[in-house]
């Protein structure tokens, strides 16, 4: 989030001649109005619609929709996926940032680009590649059948596809941050006899904590909300391989709008909480990397 005009800047602008003309005021209000209209139609109207549709048959119908065992199974699966994926990608992100930011080696920029790849590819491709590796006609398809295991159309596939799409989130937040913070304090700690782990937990971790929180919450939001990649590998088996976003789709296509928008309202609240935490971290002075 880039900041707005500082109060100094505004005060200074007011003193400038020619800034208080009717032209300046007209431009200002045109810009603000157009921005508000654009954002209202595109952002605010859909957000409000999620809740108005979810509550369209009343509060009881809204809460009743969460009694559906398939909905509960979808919520459980989404939480399970996030609990597996987020810690794994956090460890990966810290590890990648440590290797990339603290050391000089050849091919570093290629490595950074490779880590960013999952953000650049379509979510559908993210699911497709795992079908090609683990699906029936895939590389390990026969082996998996022989050993009576399934990855595609099962929970492991959902976890893998989610790991892929959220793979760079923590790493790309920590790499620039750790590069910027430098190595001086770590080198001092090591020279004074601290172990590598101690240096990480006592010196590095406190310095990078806001960036880490930032990366983790964005990773979590994407993990819980991923649709395209998971849709390709899940097989949409009700109560078994439907995550919350997939369950929204299933109910929506069955014209169960209250049910679909009720689950969607939970995901919207997750997004709102994510943005609140993100904004709080930014107000504490951490400037996130632009997406």
């Amino acid at each position: 989030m880039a900041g707005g005009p500082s109060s100094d800047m505004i005060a200074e602008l007011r003193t400038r001649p020619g800034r208080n003309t009717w032209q300046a005021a007209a431009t200002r209000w045109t810009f603000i109005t157009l921005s508000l209209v654009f954002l209202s139609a595109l952002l605010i109207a859909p957000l409000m619609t999620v809740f108005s549709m979810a509550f369209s048959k009343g509060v009881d119908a809204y809460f009743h929709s969460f009694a559906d065992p398939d909905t509960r199974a979808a919520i459980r699966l989404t939480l399970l996926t996030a609990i597996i994926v987020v810690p794994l990608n956090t460890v990966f992100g810290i590890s990648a940032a440590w290797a990339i930011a603290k050391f000089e080696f050849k091919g570093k920029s290629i490595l950074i680009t490779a880590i960013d790849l999952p953000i650049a590819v379509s979510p559908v491709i993210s699911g497709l590649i795992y079908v090609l590796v683990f699906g029936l006609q895939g590389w390990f398809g026969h082996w998996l059948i022989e050993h009576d295991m399934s990855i595609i159309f099962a929970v492991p596939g959902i976890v893998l596809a989610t790991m892929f799409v959220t793979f760079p989130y923590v790493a790309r937040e920590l790499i620039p941050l750790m590069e910027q913070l430098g190595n001086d304090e770590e080198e001092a700690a090591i020279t004074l006899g601290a172990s590598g782990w101690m240096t990480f937990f006592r010196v590095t971790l406190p310095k990078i904590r806001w960036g880490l929180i930032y990366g983790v919450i964005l990773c979590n939001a994407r993990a819980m909300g991923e649709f395209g990649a998971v849709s390709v590998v899940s097989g949409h088996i009700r109560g078994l391989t439907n995550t919350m976003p997939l369950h929204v789709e299933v109910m929506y296509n069955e014209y169960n709008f209250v049910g679909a928008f009720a689950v969607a309202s939970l995901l919207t609240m997750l997004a709102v909480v994510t943005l609140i935490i993100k904004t709080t971290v930014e107000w504490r002075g951490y400037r996130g990397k632009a997406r």
Partner: protein
Amino acid sequence: MAAYQQKSVIPGFGLTFGYTIFMLSALVLIPLAALVIKTTGLTWEQFQAVLLHPRSIASYKLTFGAALLAAVINSVFGFLVAWTLVRYEFPGRRFLDALIDMPFALPTAVSGIALTAVFAGNGPIGKYLEQFGIQVAYTWIGVVVALTLIGMPFVVRSVQPALLEVQRDLEDAAETLGASRFTIFWRIIIPTVLPALLTGFAMALARGIGEYGSVIFISGNLPMKTEITPLLIVIKLEEYDYFGAAALGFIMLVFSFVMLLSINLLQTWGRRRLVTSTR
């Protein structure tokens, strides 16, 4: 390893570098290679037959066309919003600024069903547009609307920091020398923010072409008419046509690589411009 990595007193290079390479290979590089290898299993004729099938071509036109149009709309309105947020103070500015990131945080399926409800013939905005004979949901316009929502934050977040860099002194100097507002805009502001604007445009375009979740609800998914390329891949997978899916996926992957490279080049250009301009 010793020659590859420069000497440092900090430990843990072997462990973290090894783990990074292992995870990257296992999760990203090897699966992506599977897509490329699967595609090479096709003969050139088979590959062409999939890519040049009329249904595929219709899907490219919609996907690229809608993503391009959405990116253009976002360049105009994204710039406008970024300008408003950077230059003006008004009640609710910080709230609006935080809200810009909503499309990043909101699951795409939720954006999809919500936009459909808003723009359907009986929706809060759709019913007014309907009176003018404009149908948004289940047409290509709906695809553009969805992609505009998805791409919006890329442009705003890219342009905002660049607008903060515009040197007010230059604007003042131009004004005292008698330049009009438009001259100042075209000769001072646009050149400064152009690399950032193009980066945001490219990011929105790249994201729009790959987008799936928010589009499939509002598009109606009519073959040859409102079917995007990612959806065609999903349909091929559902028909167990793995080779067809791989061929289309391969093309999209190549395009993603090209876009990733262009965005990196644009960012490098922008950084260089910024350094030279502040000297």
